[in-house]
C-alpha cells in the first residue's frame, strides 16, 4: 500500500497532479452551487409579487 502512495519516487508529481485536479474540480462545483443560490435569491427579490410588495413598503 505504501508502495502505491510512493509512486516509485514520483509521489509529489503524480499525487500533486491528481490532488490539484480534484481540488480545482471541487472548487468549481462549490462556487457554481453558491452562484446558483445567489441567483435564485436575487430572482426571488425580482419577482413581480415581491416588487409590488416592496413598493408598498411591506418588505
Amino acid at each position, binding site marked *: 500500500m505504501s508502495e*502505491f502512495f510512493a*509512486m*516509485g*519516487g*514520483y509521489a*509529489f*508529481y*503524480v499525487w*500533486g*497532479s*491528481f490532488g*490539484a*485536479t480534484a481540488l*480545482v*474540480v471541487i472548487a*468549481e*462545483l462549490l462556487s*457554481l452551487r453558491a*452562484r*446558483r443560490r445567489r*441567483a*435564485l435569491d*436575487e*430572482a*426571488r427579490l*425580482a*419577482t*413581480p*409579487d415581491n*416588487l409590488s410588495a416592496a413598493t408598498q413598503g411591506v418588505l
Partner: protein
Amino acid sequence: MTSSNWYRYSSPATFYPIAGRMIPWFGWAAAVLAAIGLWIGLGLAPTDFQQGEAYRIIFIHVAAAWMSMFIYVVMAAWSGVFLAFNTRLSAMMAQAMAPTGALMTFIALLTGSLWGKPTWGTYWAWDARMTSELILLFLYMGVIALRNAIDDPRRADRACAVLALVGVINVPIIYFSVKWWNTLHQGSSVSLTAAPKMAMIMLTGMLIMALAAWFYSIAVTLYRVRVIMIERERGSAWVGELQEVQSR
C-alpha cells in the same frame, strides 16, 4: 418539421427544463467513467518502462488538454451562431463554457508542468506547445474579464463573441505546434490515422478519462447556463414561475 420548431429550443424558457433533465445523466456518467478511468490508470495500468510511475499523470493531462481545446472551439462556434442569428441562448452557452474551459486549460498546464519536471528536468519551457496553451488560458480569461467589464449584457455578448472567434485561430496552432516547430513537448501518441504508440490498457484508461472530462464539461456547462439564465432573465415571468424561485 418547420424551422420555427428549432428556434423554439433557442428560447431560454424552453431550454431551461430540458437542460435540467440532462444534468444528472451527464453528471453521473462523468462520475462513473472517472472512477473506472482512475481505477485503470492508478491500479491496472502497468509501470512505464521509461518513465516509471510519473507517466500516470497522462490520465489527467491528456483529457484536460483535449477538453481545453475542444471547449474553446465549441465556445467559438456558439459565438458564431450568436453573431449570425442573434439568438441569446447561443451567447449564454458561450458564456457558460468559458470558466470550465479555463479550468481545463489550467489543469493541463499544471499537470504538464508537474510531468515536465521529472521527465524533462524543468517545470516550464517557452516552447510552442506550452506557450500556445498558455495563450489559450489568457484567451479564456480575456473573454471572462471582457464580460465583467461591460455592463450591458447584449453588448458584452457581442464583444465576447468577436474575441472568442478571433482567438479560435490559436487552437490549430496548439494542435499542430508539435509538428510545425521543434518542441520540447512530445508529438502526439494517439492519432486517427495511425496505430497508437502506447499499450492498450494505458490507451483505454486515457480515453475513458477523456470521456469523463467530456461528460463533466457538459454537465457543468448545462448547470452554469441555467444559472446564467436566472441571472439574466430575473424579473421575467418564466423565471418568476420556476418552482425553485417560488419555494424557499
